Each structure stands twice: as C-alpha cells, then as structure tokens.
C-alpha cells in the first residue's frame, strides 16, 4: 500500500513537473533562410514586421516569409512570441488586409520538413522551424 502510494506520488510529481516545465518553456525556434541568401542575421522586431506584411525586405534584401500550419504548435509559438498575437488575432489582422488588397498572409506549410524544402528552393524565402530540425541544407539567421 505504502509502496504503491509512493510510486503514484512520484509519478504524479514527475508528470506535474514535466507539464509545468513545458508550459514555462517553448521549443527553441530558429529563423532560417536559403544558403545563398545575403542575410547573416536578423532581429525579432524585423521578423515581426515582415510576417505582418509591413516590410518586404531585411537590410535591403528582398524576403518572402513562409508560415507553418496556423493550427499547429510551431505557428502558435511563433505568433505568440514574435507577433504577440493569438492565432485568432493573426487571422483577424489578415482579414483586414486581404480584402483591401493591401496584403496577403505568408504561404503555409505543414511542418518543419516542408518549410526547409521550400526555403531550399527559393533564394528569397525565410521561415521558422523547431531549432532541433535545423540541418546543413539551410542557413540559420536567429534562434530564440
């Protein structure tokens, strides 16, 4: 009885700590670009502007931002940290611009692998992926 209680207690606390830890932290996000890109680094404030359609270049270099699936975890983290908006707020933001022809939201890709492929194919593309997915085929501009 005591042993069972102890085990369940340990299990619960481990579960609790893991849950707690995952709420507090987020997967490290990497902003990536094509290897041939003239960009070497960037700032969150600039990425925010590009992803909200307010700018189309970084330090004079033309960029095409790529999104991830808006209902996925990566997009949620990115929207929260970089854009300071919930997914619903992002959609509301774009619905104001789309129907005036003042802008279109970045194209969406399903996951890290697809973003990497798209970035490899377009010299102007930039995207965000889980830092763990970074490989040698693309360049990392920023991690946070």
């Amino acid at each position: 009885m005591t042993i069972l209680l102890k085990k369940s207690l340990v299990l619960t606390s481990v579960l609790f700590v893991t849950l707690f830890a995952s709420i507090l932290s987020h997967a490290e996000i990497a902003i990536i670009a094509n290897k041939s890109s003239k960009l070497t680094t960037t700032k969150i404030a600039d990425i925010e502007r590009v992803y909200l359609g307010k700018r189309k270049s970084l330090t004079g270099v033309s960029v095409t931002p790529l999104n991830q699936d808006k209902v996925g975890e990566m997009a949620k983290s990115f929207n929260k940290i970089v854009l300071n908006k919930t997914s619903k707020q992002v959609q509301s933001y774009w619905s104001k611009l789309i129907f005036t022809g003042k802008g279109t939201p970045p194209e969406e890709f399903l996951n890290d692998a697809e973003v990497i492929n798209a970035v490899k194919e377009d010299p102007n593309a930039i995207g965000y992926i889980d830092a763990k997915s970074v490989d040698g085929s693309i360049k990392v501009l920023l991690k946070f």
Partner: protein
Amino acid sequence: MKISTTIAGVGLALLAYPHFTHANDDIKVNGFLTIGAGFALIDDDEDSGANSSDSLYGSSSNETIRSYEENLTFHQETILGMQVVAPISEKLSLTGQLVTRGIQDYNVEAAWAYASYEASENLTLRMGRFRIPFYLYSDYLEVGYAYHWVSPPNEMYVLPFESIDGIDAVYNMPIGPFDATIQAYAGSVNDDFTNVDKDFSILTVIRNQVGLVFTVEYDWLTLRASAHTNNSSYPEFGDFYSEALEPVGGTIDGLAGTLIGIGDQLDSNPISQPLSEGYYTAAQGLYLNEERFNFAELGMRIDWNNILLVAEASELNPSGGPVADVSRWFASAGYTFNDFMFHLTYTEARDTQSDISKTIYDLSDLSQELGQTSNLLTQAVDGVTRSLMTTGNTITAGIRYDFTAGAALKLEYSEIEDDQEASGSLFRITVDMVF
C-alpha cells in the same frame, strides 16, 4: 466603371497567356460571408421623430429602424464577397471583388476592380474601382469577421458612396517603432445612395473627389486623420415624392415650383419685389447641384492585451443645398476573455439642419393668405432639410464569440434614440466567416 472594366478585361486577357504569370504566385481567391437576422422594437410615443408631421417618409419610418421591422428578417446584414487577386508580374497585380448584399436585393456588384503596382517597397499605386478611405473601418466595412460589432456604428458609418473609380497612392514609412502611412486618392463615381437610417435610395453623382489619409501605428496604438473634398449632385432629387409634400405638388420639383411661383408673384409688385429674391434662393437651395462637400475624420484605436478602445469623429460640410452639416462620433470599449469579447459602444449624431428655409420671408404683413402660404412653404422646406439630417444617439452592447478559426458568432442589442425617425431597440445576431 468603364476604366475598371477595361482593366479587368486586359487583365483577364493577360491571364490567358501563362508565360506572364510566375509559377510561385498563383491566383489567390478569398471570400467573406455574413449571415444575419434581426428585429426592432419601435417606440410608439408621441415624442418619436417618426410621428411628427415633419417626417417626409410617412408610414415607412414608423415601421422600421435602420430598415429592421418588428418582425424577424434575415436580409439586412447578409453579405457574400469573393475576391480574386491575380499577379501579373512581380510588381503588378489585378484585384477584383464581387459583393452581393441582402439589403440591396442581392444584386451582384463589383465592389473593387483595380490594378495594383508596387512602385517601390514603400509605395503602391492603384487604378480602378476601390473603397473610399473615409473611416477607420472603411477598408473592410463588409468583412464582419474583421471587427467586433455586427456592423460599425450606423450613425458614424453614414457616408453611402463606398467605392470610387480613380487612382490612389499609398506610401508606407517605418520610422523607428512607428509605422506611418499616407494615402492620397482622386476619383469620381455615380452611385445609388442608400440611407439605411431613413430607408431611401437616391442617385448620387460625385465628381473630382480627392482625399488624404494619414495613419500612424505604434504597437497597440493606431491614430488616423483624413480629409476629403468633392462636388456632389443629386440629379434625380427633384423627382423625390412624399405624401407630406402633397400640398405643394408632392415632389421636390413641385415645392420648388411653388416657391418660384410665389417669387414671381412678389416680383410683379414693386412693394414686395425685394422679398422675391429669397424665394428664388430657397427654391434653388433645395437642389444639390455640384455642391462642394468637405469631409474630415479623426480616429483612434487602442488594442492592448485583452482591451480594445476605439473612438472616431467626423464632420461633413456641404457648401450649400439641403443636406445638413453632418457631425458624428462614437466611442467603443471591448474586453476579450478566452474566445469571448464583450463590448459597449456609444454613438452620437449632432447634425446641424440646413438653413435654406430662412430666406422664405414671412408674408403675413402683406396679407393673411400670403402669410399662411409662406408658413406652409417654410414648413415644407424644413421638412425636406429635416429628412436629410440626424440628431440622436445609440447605445450598443454586444458579445462576439469566436467559436472556430475563421468564424465568429455575434449577438447585439442597441438602444436607439432618433429625433427625426423612429426610436426604439434593435436586436441582431450574425455569423461572420472568412475563407
């Protein structure tokens, strides 16, 4: 409309040649849909503006508030819009938007049809038919999903001609943490002016409209100021008929004719001759014929954490004619909790009635009969100018529920006080979607 049709035609022709389009830039199609229902409870008391004998709209204004009846109806808010953006080259694209509205009997109209050219990173030029940027919410007035109300405050969003055929330039200037935008446009349009408050429609001819819009955004704060001017005409206003005008011929033409007739009568006698001028002036003042209209607007929006505060004020000054000096403002506050937003809005209309009747001099010194006539004419002209103004206010409380991505449910209650038309309450429910 001719210009836009040509552009659209050229664009479509270009689209037929695949080598003009980039593989990466496909044609994008987006749409928005609002389905709504509502009903009104109309105050029956004697103070109601609609019951006053001055009202030009007779029975209809007793039975509707903002075109809502005391029965449940579904067409007033229902709107479907489809937009196609076709990139022609890296800098040039064509945008077309078709809209159909329940309140206009589901006529399909081209709300937008323009070519857009990115002259530089910061400068975009457009030519064709586009929305006139009068107000904060002008750009996406019909996209219910983009704002918290069922519709932006009716008293405020009162200028009826929404789209214009012309050219415009939008210049973005990032200045440190601020984003400033200047928009300048020019154009003209013929449109059927639908006044929802007063439930009528009239052809409006706008010429030589130019405007300037200045917007500054900083994180959670947006400030906006705009100024516009044009020449407006109501070429068919003379035909406007109302039962209230029956004593003077029934139409505006009839009223003007009667004024001129009296003017002629006064003119034929050297004693009364000086009084005739005022009658001719009043007759002319009834018509809107290339009057200069000036419009100015100030707006502010705070979007901070879960709190939303929006306020806007506008002034419309016609240089003459029967339309009032229109003065409107509103303030709205909203709080978001999870997927729910609760909001409260106060809107006020403080128009100044057009004073064209002031030159209809009282003739009771000349004879009792003429005195009665001058009174009748003054009342009739005041009735006309009164029908082209609004004083009153509205308090609105509502809830918006984002039940899924791209769709929202809205419930709204408004308490409306209108000194010229019917007062009462309005209940509305809508579902707004974007796709």
